[in-house]
C-alpha cells in the first residue's frame, strides 16, 4: 500500500469516526449481494431496509438516535461476507442484517460466535431476515442470531396443513434443487405428509442441479408419467419460473406448492403460466394488510414508483424488533438489546409475533396464497406486474406452525 493510500484510508476513517460522534447513529451493516445473479433481490432488500429505517427516523429515531444502513456487497459469497463483517466491526458497527443464502448466514453465525466470545464489549448482533435453514434455530442456534422469517420446517408445516384439507391431493411429486435447501425441503415434506395424510402417495422425489436447467420439459414429462396432481418445490428464481412455464407448455394440470413464487422477479417471469396453479407460503399477504400497513405500502410506492411493490416483511419486522428492543433496554449495547429481544411479543400487522427465547426464531402467522389474475378484489399486484396478484387462501397463526420443538441449547453470555 502506497503512502497516499494509507493517508486516504486514515482520512476516511477519521471522517467516519467524526460522523459517528456528531450524530450518534445506530448503524446496521446490510451484508447481501448487490451485484451478480442475486443482485436484484439484494438491491430490493436494501431499498426496503433503508425505507424501514427512514420510517423510524421520521418518528425521531430511537433513544434520540437515528438508524443508518451501511450497504455491503457480499456477492453471495460466504468468504466475502466474512471480510465485510470484519470491516463492519472495524467501523464500530454492532448490528448486521443478512438474508440471501443460508451458506452465508451459517458462516456469519460461526464468525460472530467467535468474535463475540473473544471481544466482550464489542459484540455484534445478527438480524437474519430471510435465511431459512432450520439448523440456525436448532443445533446451530446462537444467542447473537435472530431470525425473522419462518424457517423451512415451519413453512412446510403450513403447506402440509393446508394440503391436508385439500381432498383432491392424492399423489405428490417432489422436485427440488440439488443443494442443502432442496434436500431439506424434500426430507421434511416426506415426513410431514406421512404424519398428516398417510394416504397421500409421494410418486417422485427428484433433485436437479441449481440454476443449470434451461428446459424443464423432460422433468415435466416425468411428473406427468408419475400421475402426480401436486408438486412441492423449494425452487427459487429462474428454476421456479422455468419449471412452471414448462408445465404450462405441456398442459400439465398439477398444482405447485412453492416457497418462493412471490420472490423478486418470479411473478413477471412466470406470467400466465402460473395462474391458478401456483401456491406460495409466506409470512405476509399484501392483500390482507391492515390499513396502517397499506398506508406504508402507498408511501413506499409513491417514493419508488407505482410498479415497485414492497416485498420483505422480514426486514420490516427486524427493524421493528430492533427499535423496540433498544427502547426497552434503554441502551444500544448489543448484549442488552439481544436480551430485551428474547421473548419479545407484540401485535404485528398480521397477528401476534413472538421472538421465541429458546431459539431466537420468530413465531408469526403464515399465509398460503394462490397466484391469480388480478381483479378489483386485489388491491396489490404481484411484484411489479399489473396483471397478477396473490389471493390469500388460508392463514395459520404462529403457534400452529411452530409446533416442532427446537433442539436448541442456547448459550447466553454470562
Amino acid at each position: 500500500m502506497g503512502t497516499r493510500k494509507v493517508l486516504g484510508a486514515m482520512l476516511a476513517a477519521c471522517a467516519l469516526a467524526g460522523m459517528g460522534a456528531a450524530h450518534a447513529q445506530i448503524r446496521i451493516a446490510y451484508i447481501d449481494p448487490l451485484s451478480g445473479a442475486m443482485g436484484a433481490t439484494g438491491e430490493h432488500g436494501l431499498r426496503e431496509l433503508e425505507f424501514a429505517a427512514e420510517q423510524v427516523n421520521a418518528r425521531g429515531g430511537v433513544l434520540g438516535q437515528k438508524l443508518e444502513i451501511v450497504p455491503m456487497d457480499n456477492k453471495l459469497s460466504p468468504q466475502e461476507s466474512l471480510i465485510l463483517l470484519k470491516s463492519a466491526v472495524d467501523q464500530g458497527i454492532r448490528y448486521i442484517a443478512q438474508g440471501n443464502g443460508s451458506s452465508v448466514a451459517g458462516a456469519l453465525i460461526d464468525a460472530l460466535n467467535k468474535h463475540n466470545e473473544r471481544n466482550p464489549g464489542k459484540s455484534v448482533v445478527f438480524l437474519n431476515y430471510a435465511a431459512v435453514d432450520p439448523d440456525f434455530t436448532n443445533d446451530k442456534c446462537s444467542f447473537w442470531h435472530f431470525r425473522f422469517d419462518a424457517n423451512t420446517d415451519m413453512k412446510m408445516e403450513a403447506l402440509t396443513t393446508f394440503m391436508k384439507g385439500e381432498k383432491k391431493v392424492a399423489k405428490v411429486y417432489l422436485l427440488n434443487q440439488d443443494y442443502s435447501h432442496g434436500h431439506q425441503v424434500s426430507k421434511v415434506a416426506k415426513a410431514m405428509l406421512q404424519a398428516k395424510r398417510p394416504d397421500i402417495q409421494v410418486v417422485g422425489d427428484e433433485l436437479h442441479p441449481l440454476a443449470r436447467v434451461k428446459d424443464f420439459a423432460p422433468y415435466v414429462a416425468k411428473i406427468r408419467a408419475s400421475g402426480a396432481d401436486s408438486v412441492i418445490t423449494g425452487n427459487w428464481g429462474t428454476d421456479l419460473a422455468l419449471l412452471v412455464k414448462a408445465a404450462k407448455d405441456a398442459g400439465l394440470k398439477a398444482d405447485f406448492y412453492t416457497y418462493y413464487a412471490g420472490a423478486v422477479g418470479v411473478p413477471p417471469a412466470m406470467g400466465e403460466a402460473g395462474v391458478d396453479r401456483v401456491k406460495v407460503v409466506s409470512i405476509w399477504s399484501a392483500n390482507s394488510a391492515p390499513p396502517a400497513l397499506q398506508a406504508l405500502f402507498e408511501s413506499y410506492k409513491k417514493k419508488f414508483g407505482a410498479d415497485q411493490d414492497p416485498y420483505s416483511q422480514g426486514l420490516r419486522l427486524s427493524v421493528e424488533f430492533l427499535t423496540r428492543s433498544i427502547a426497552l433496554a434503554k441502551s444500544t449495547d448489543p448484549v442488552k438489546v439481544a436480551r430485551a429481544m428474547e421473548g419479545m411479543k407484540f401485535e404485528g400487522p398480521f397477528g401476534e409475533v413472538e421472538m421465541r427465547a429458546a431459539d431466537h426464531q420468530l413465531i408469526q402467522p403464515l399465509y398460503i396464497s394462490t397466484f391469480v389474475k388480478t381483479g378489483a378484489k386485489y388491491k396489490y399486484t404481484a411484484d411489479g406486474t399489473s396483471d397478477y396478484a396473490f389471493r390469500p387462501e388460508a392463514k395459520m397463526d404462529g403457534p400452529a406452525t411452530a409446533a416442532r420443538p427446537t433442539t436448541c441449547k442456547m448459550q447466553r453470555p454470562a
Partner: protein
Amino acid sequence: MELFLTSLLNGVTYGLLLFMLSSGLTLIFSMMGVLNFAHASFYMLGAYFGYLVSTKVGYYPALLLAPLAVGAIGALVERYGLRRAHASGHVAELLFTFGLAFLIEEIVHLVWGKTPVPYRIPASLDGPLFTLYSSTFPAYKGFMMLVSVGMLVALYAALTRTRIGLVIQAALSRPDMVEALGHDVPRIFMLVFGGGAALAALAGVIGGNAFITEPGMAAAVGSIVFVVVVVGGLGSLQGAFVASLLIGVVQTFAVAIDYRIPGMGRMSVSQLAPVLPYLIMVLILIARPRGLMGTRES
C-alpha cells in the same frame, strides 16, 4: 412408451434450440477463426431488443429488426474493436470478446435493470400445436424448431451455393489471392461477424420469451454453446447440428432414468443429466480432439 416418445420429442426440441444458439458461433469460428466469448451476450441483446421492438411495433417485425440491429452492432464491434485486436493475434481477440461479454452484461443491467422483463409469447403462437398422448406440444416450440432447421438450410446454402459464400470461404484460406481479385477481405470479415451476431440475436428474440429474459441469461447459455461447438468439431456447421441433437437427446433421456448408479449412494442417472454434455465434451476432446465432424485440429 409415452415417456419414451415425449422424451424423444423433448430431446429433439432441445437439440434444435441448442443448434439455434450455437450456429452463429460456429459460423464466426469457421470463417474467421475467432472464438467469440461474447456470443451469448449477443443472444441476450437479441432477446432484449426483441422485447423492446415487440412492445413498440410487434413480435413479427422484431424477428427481423432485432437481429438487424444486433448484427449492425456486431459489425461495428468487428470494425472498430476486433479488427485492431486481430493484429495482435488470437489471444488478444479472445480477451477482447471476453471483456466485451462483461461490458454488454453491465450495459443490460444499466438499461433494463437486474430483474426479468415481461417478454411474452405472441398470442398467435401461444397454445398447443398437437397432443401426444396426454401431453400437449406448444406451438411456439414448433416455431422454434422450424426456425432452427431454417437456419441450418439457409446457412448451408449461403456458404456453398452463393457467390458471396464462395468468396467468404476463399477469404478464409487464401486471403491474399481474394484481395488480389479485388474483394475487400476485411469487409467480408466484418459481414461475417455481423451475421454471426445477428444469428445469435435471432435465437435471442425467439428464446427470450420461451424462457426468461434477464441479465443472467447470457451466462446461463454461455458454456453449453461452447460444448456444442467443441463436440461438433470447431468450425463445422453440420457437426454443430449433429452435436446439438446428440446432446439434446442424451440429456433429455438421462433425466427420465431413475436408475441409481451403484456405489454412488443416492446419486441417480437423472441427477447427472445436466453434467452429461460436459462429460461428452471431455471424452470427445480425449478421443477425437477435432470433434465429431471437425476438419481442423485446434
